[in-house]
């Protein structure tokens, strides 16, 4: 059987989390709002309305570009892209066809491969239609939301790499703080271009475009499906048709939507209502200064302490990473807290806590310190950690919480010896003491347990073991 190599390029639309829309001054955050309640006369496409460029969106776009290791074009322009659809009130979308704000760049995947960015541009989002039986409803809350569209070069050659690329884009954009990154609500959407060619061939096959994917998993599955589908066609001697295809998560299949040959002519023209965007290199530099720490920074910082796997897991949670970054002077603390994050916070039953405020640096450092001083067992540490998220407790300091929970361990040797003596004096431990002296190591566990019981769990088990050994030798 012939082996086919896929070639994949991805376009990604990122909704920017600016306060207001790209060309009007209405609220850009339509979450939990009534349909058509965040719409200005400009977004509604009334006659005589003119776009008014939101400078915050320009700054966000610059920041997005810097996150993509891209050149920022100091002069960029807007163009109109025309098509008729009820989600597009003006009959054209204001975009940047000819002179985009973001130039060539690249995204480095966790495996070290680089995917080149062709360009990225600023544009406005369209509204949303919901189709009912016999009629359709239009919601223009999203119309005019600023988008950055990131266009990659066809540098991706497998489904898993396509997933990694989209995930890495998501990380870059959320770390840069330019989007809420809520995939479920369409904050980032992916159009994936896929073609296959025989291994060793210099020519690319005919590509199809799967539009509007909104999760990394569906990007991966859609690529897998398309590669299989296209391979089967070629095996049968048939041709792949250049077309746009839709994806269904439910069926796990792509289906043809419209053929590119009859695709709309968008009649691009320069937007005459807006002056070109002109930036100074000082303005770009200012944005560079504002750019938060990016995944690559965390990777190089934490790779040796935590290992690549744990770093990759935690990278999905920018807030956890930035919390760890607060602890960087203390590698042991980073390691312990990172483990708590992954074992406690990311455990399925606790993921809702991720929406809460994280513990303070002081709380976390105290937690680690108590553990290191044997004042908290690893179980105790977990218990205290969870209480950091308890609305009744979270404002208290670590020691207070540990005391209130009664999990501070007894490390005072004299006090421990007294407890051990009490236990050794009890008749029910006499047999075990004799057995131990006779060489039966395993009964030591029983004795330790008895001491722990007597101390109501506060004794440090390894200290207890030590005391028992010396007393019974």
């Amino acid at each position: 059987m012939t082996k086919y190599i896929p070639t994949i390029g991805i376009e990604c639309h990122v909704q920017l989390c600016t306060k207001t829309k790209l060309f009007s001054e209405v609220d850009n955050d339509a979450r939990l709002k009534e349909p058509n309640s965040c719409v200005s006369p400009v977004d509604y496409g009334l006659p005589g309305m003119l776009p008014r460029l939101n400078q915050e969106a320009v700054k966000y776009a610059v920041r997005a570009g810097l996150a993509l290791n891209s050149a920022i074009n100091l002069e960029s322009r807007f163009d109109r892209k025309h098509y008729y659809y009820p989600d597009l009130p003006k009959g054209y979308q204001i975009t940047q066809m000819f002179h985009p704000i973001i130039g060539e760049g690249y995204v480095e995947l966790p495996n070290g491969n680089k995917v080149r960015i062709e360009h990225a541009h600023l544009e406005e989002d369209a509204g949303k239609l919901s189709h009912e039986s016999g009629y359709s409803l239009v919601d223009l809350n999203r119309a005019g939301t600023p988008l950055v569209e990131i266009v990659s070069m066809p540098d991706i050659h497998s489904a898993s790499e396509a997933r990694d690329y989209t995930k890495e884009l998501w990380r870059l954009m959320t770390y840069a703080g330019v989007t809420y990154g809520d995939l479920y609500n369409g904050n980032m959407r992916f159009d994936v271009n896929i073609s296959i060619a025989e291994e060793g061939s210099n020519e690319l096959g005919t590509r199809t475009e799967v539009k509007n994917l909104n999760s990394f998993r569906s990007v991966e599955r859609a690529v897998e499906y398309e590669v299989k589908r296209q391979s089967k066609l070629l095996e049968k001697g048939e041709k792949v048709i250049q077309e746009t295809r839709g994806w269904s998560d439910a069926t796990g299949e792509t289906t043809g939507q419209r053929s590119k040959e009859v695709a709309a002519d968008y009649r691009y023209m320069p937007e005459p209502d807006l002056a070109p965007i002109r930036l100074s290199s000082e303005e770009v530099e200012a944005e560079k200064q504002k750019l938060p720490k990016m995944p690559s920074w965390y990777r190089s910082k934490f790779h040796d302490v935590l290992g690549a796997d744990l770093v990759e897991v935690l990278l999905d949670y920018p807030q956890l990473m930035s919390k760890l970054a607060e602890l960087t002077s203390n590698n042991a603390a980073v390691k312990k807290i990172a483990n708590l994050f992954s074992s406690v916070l990311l455990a399925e039953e606790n993921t809702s806590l991720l929406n809460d405020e994280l513990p303070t640096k002081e709380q976390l450092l105290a937690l680690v310190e108590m553990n290191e001083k044997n004042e908290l067992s690893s179980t105790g540490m977990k218990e205290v950690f969870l209480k950091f998220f308890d609305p009744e407790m979270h404002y208290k300091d670590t020691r207070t919480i540990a005391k209130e929970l009664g999990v501070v361990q007894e490390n005072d040797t004299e006090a421990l010896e007294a407890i051990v003596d009490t236990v050794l004096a009890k008749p029910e431990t006499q047999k075990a003491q004799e057995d131990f002296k006779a060489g039966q190591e395993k009964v030591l566990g029983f004795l330790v347990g008895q001491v722990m019981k007597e101390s109501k769990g506060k004794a440090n088990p390894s200290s207890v073991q030590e005391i028992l050994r010396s007393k019974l030798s």
Partner: protein
Amino acid sequence: MKIANREQSAVELVREALAKAHEYQDEYHVFNWINDDAIRKAEEIDQRIAQGEEVGKLAGVPYALKDNFLSPEGESTASALILEGFNSPVTATAVKKLEAEGAIMIGRTNLDAFAHGSSTENSYYGPTKNSKDVERVAGGSSGGSAVAVALGIVPFALGTDTGGSIRQPASFNGVYGLKPTYGAISRYGVVAMASSTDCIGFFTHEAEDLDLLMGVVAGQDKNDQTTLPDFYRESTAKTVKKVGIIKDFDNEAVNSEIREALKRKIGTLKAQGYEIIELEMPALKYALAAYYIIVPAEVSSNLSRHDGVRYGYRSADASSLGELYENTRNEGFMPENKRRIMIGNFVLSSGFYDAYYLKAAKARTLIINEYAKAFEKCDVILTPVAPNPAFKLGEKINDPVAMYLEDVMSVPLNLAGVPGLTVPAGKTKSGLDLGLQLVGPRRSDRTLVEFAKVLEEVK
């Protein structure tokens, strides 16, 4: 200041204007809508004056508004069926500024639908008649506004000029018509024709009134990012010494009475000691062609929003989304609108863009440079506005190219963004109005207005 020289009460002024508006309406069809409620605003202003309150520079002055300006007063129809029933929630910046100074809108004037035309015959509501001869056109597209001033209904009217739509009807009706520098006045709230050439301007009886109006209305607007930083009030008029004339415009295609009017005016200026500079401006011959590519392109784009989905007219006869668009737009637009939409779509089509739009944009740059060169040699240019005086109704309506040729001397200014001012220049033997246009470099609006006052005195 003649329009602010209040010898009558606001109520008297407005009542008189409304009476005239009604009196002339049947014969001339100046208005799409007459604002009888205007009288209430006049009463308010008189009360404020009586109470000693301060009122604006235009308090109680009635004016006429071209029906492509948005305001909640009356429907804003742009003389097109597709906007019938459209009550705007938004007020145009220009209207806001006038009203803030107390001006009172007494009616919305007729125009070629969406300002597409040079005669006001393309109005869905029928043509406006010329103020001197009702068998002739008012000119266009701001025909209603020009005639409203010419008939003495109002002392001033608002218009828009995309390729001559203020200057040509002003010359056809013997009034002043100013198309300011592109970007001098906010376009916010004015139904767009071609965004890169649309200008808001005025019709008046006196040149001096233009100065007052520019002082009120011009200026930067955050809602129109193509407006220039305020310059009018700060600028000083340059003393004109050298007047340019364009050799190429003195040809057989221009009506002889217009050429004579220009020669007379030049003679007078020479006698007054002005230097007359003959200019060669060969790039202007590309202007009409470039204009009728760039403008339809922008028109087709700007009119895309009229789809019957959100406001205005919607075809009753549609069973699918495609039909809703097709039927609404087919029924709602006038033939000239459709012609320009089709030309625009054609020149923007993929594969044609470079050959048409891009080439026209290059020609536009040549024209801009040509004006810059000309104004190194002279202070202002004096030319005819149009090749002919007001023509007969129906004479050119079926010959779009003949109609477009009417714009040959007015459109170059719009492509270059320079200001132009129509000044009355006597009458033809048969009594039709003649006008000439003064052209200056960008931001020379005040110079033009001041020089128009000089011409007024030397006539």
